[in-house]
C-alpha cells in the first residue's frame, strides 16, 4: 500500500432508510417536547460542561434523531444534569429528562 499523505474521507451523509428509529420513538413517547427542537443551539451555548470539555447537546440531539446511537454513549456520560439547557430552551423542551431517558434507553450508567 502506498502512503499518499491522505485517506479517503468517509461520508457524513446518513441514509435514513437504513436507520432503526425504535429508540427515538421510545424517547419521543417519554419526552414528547423533544420533537419541538429547532436546532438553535441555545442549550449548547449555555452548557457548563461544554466550557471545559468537548461536549455538544445539540449534536447529541441530532445524533439521536439520526439514530446514530453508537457514538452517543460516551457523550451522554459527560452531562452533569445541571438543567441549565432546560431553562434557556426557547421551545421549552425538557432537555434534562431527555438526557436522562436517553441514558436509560441506551443503558448508559
Amino acid at each position, binding site marked *: *500500500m*502506498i502512503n*499518499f*499523505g*491522505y*485517506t*479517503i*474521507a*468517509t*461520508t457524513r451523509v446518513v441514509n435514513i432508510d437504513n436507520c432503526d428509529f425504535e429508540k427515538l420513538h421510545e424517547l419521543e413517547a417519554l419526552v414528547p417536547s423533544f420533537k419541538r427542537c429547532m436546532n438553535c443551539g441555545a442549550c449548547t451555548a449555555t452548557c457548563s460542561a461544554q466550557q471545559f470539555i468537548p461536549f455538544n447537546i445539540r449534536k447529541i440531539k441530532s445524533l439521536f434523531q439520526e439514530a446514530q446511537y453508537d457514538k452517543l454513549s460516551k457523550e451522554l456520560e459527560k452531562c452533569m444534569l445541571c438543567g441549565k439547557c432546560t431553562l434557556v430552551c426557547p421551545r421549552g423542551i425538557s432537555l434534562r429528562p431527555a438526557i436522562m431517558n436517553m441514558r436509560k434507553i441506551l443503558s448508559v450508567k
Partner: protein
Amino acid sequence: MTKRFWNEYQKEIADDHFFYERSCIRQTFFPGSENAFLRMMREVLHKDIRDEENQHTCTGIGYHSDIVPLETTMTVVARLFALMTEAGYTNYVPSCVTSFGIFTEMVEMWKNDPELLAKTRENLKKATGREFEIPTNLVHPSDIIYKFREELKQHMKYQLVNRFTGKPLRVVEHVGCHYAKIFPEKGIGKSEFPYVLAGMIESWGGEVVDYPERRHCCGFGFRHYLLQENRGYSIANSKKKFDSMEPYEPDFIVSNCPGCSMFMDKWQYTIAEMENKTYDHDGYGIPVLTYEEMAGLLLGYDPWELGLQIHQVQSEKLMDKIGIKYDPDAKYRGVNGKILPTPNKPTFLKQ
C-alpha cells in the same frame, strides 16, 4: 421515441467557422483528444476551425482557487477574444469545460454590467493594445460533436456494441459541472438532464447507464485537490460515484471535462493502491475516455495516436470488445519511431 424533458431544450450551435482554444491540462493527460477533434472537424465534417498558436490559459484553475482576481481573469479572457476577433471569427470553442464555464460567466457579467465591460476593454487596451468583440456563439466542442453526431456516424467503422454478445456497450456518461451547472441554459438538456454525451452514446449504438450518483461531482473541485490535506474529500467523491456505478457493470466511462476524465481515471489507481479495490470483475478498472477519444476510436483512428496508452486504466479490453484493431508493439512508440520508456506497473490495478 420516448418523449423526454431534455428534448425540449436545445441550445444554439453554429454550423461552421469556429475559433478553437486548447485546454491547459488536456494536452498532458489526453494528448490526442484535441488533435482528434480538429481532424474530425476538418477531414470528416469539412468545417473551418482555427487552431490559434498565440493562445494561452483562461486562468480557470487559478480563478477557482482564489489565486487570480476577477479583473485579471476578465482581461485574460478579453485577450483570447481579441485573438478571435483579429482572426476574423465570431464562434468561440474552448476545449475545456472549465474554460467554457469561465467564458460564459464573464460574458454574462459583461452583459449585466456594461461598465465592467468598458473597464475590461480599457484594461486590455492598456496592457496589450488589442480590442475585442464578444463571441456571437460560445459552445463547447462536445456540443459540436453532439450536433453533428449523425454525420460522424456515417463515417464510423465501429459501433458501441460488444461484438462477442451483440449487445450495446454499457456506458457511463459524466458531464463536467461547469458545462451546465453554472448556467443551465448553456447546456444541451440544461443542467438536470444534460443530453450532450448521452446523445452521442445512443446515436453510436451504446446504452447509457443511469445510476444513482450520475450527476454527482467527480471531486475535482480545484482548491480541494490542490491541497494534499483536502484530497481525501476529493477522492471520496469519485469513490462515491464508482461505488454507485459498480453494480451496473459499465464497459467504460466517457466525460467531456478534462478534470473529470483525469480524476476518474487516476483515482481508480489511487483507490486500488489504498484499498486494493477495483471496479470491474477482472481488476483492470473501468476505462475512462474523452468524447473525442470515443468518437476517434469509432472512426477508426489509431488508439495510440489518440493517446490511450497515457491513461491510467488501459483500454485494450474495451477495444477488443468493440473489435478495434491495434498494434500492441506500437503502444509506446514515439512519432520518431523509437520505443519510449514504459511506465511502471501499478501494484493492484492490472494493465
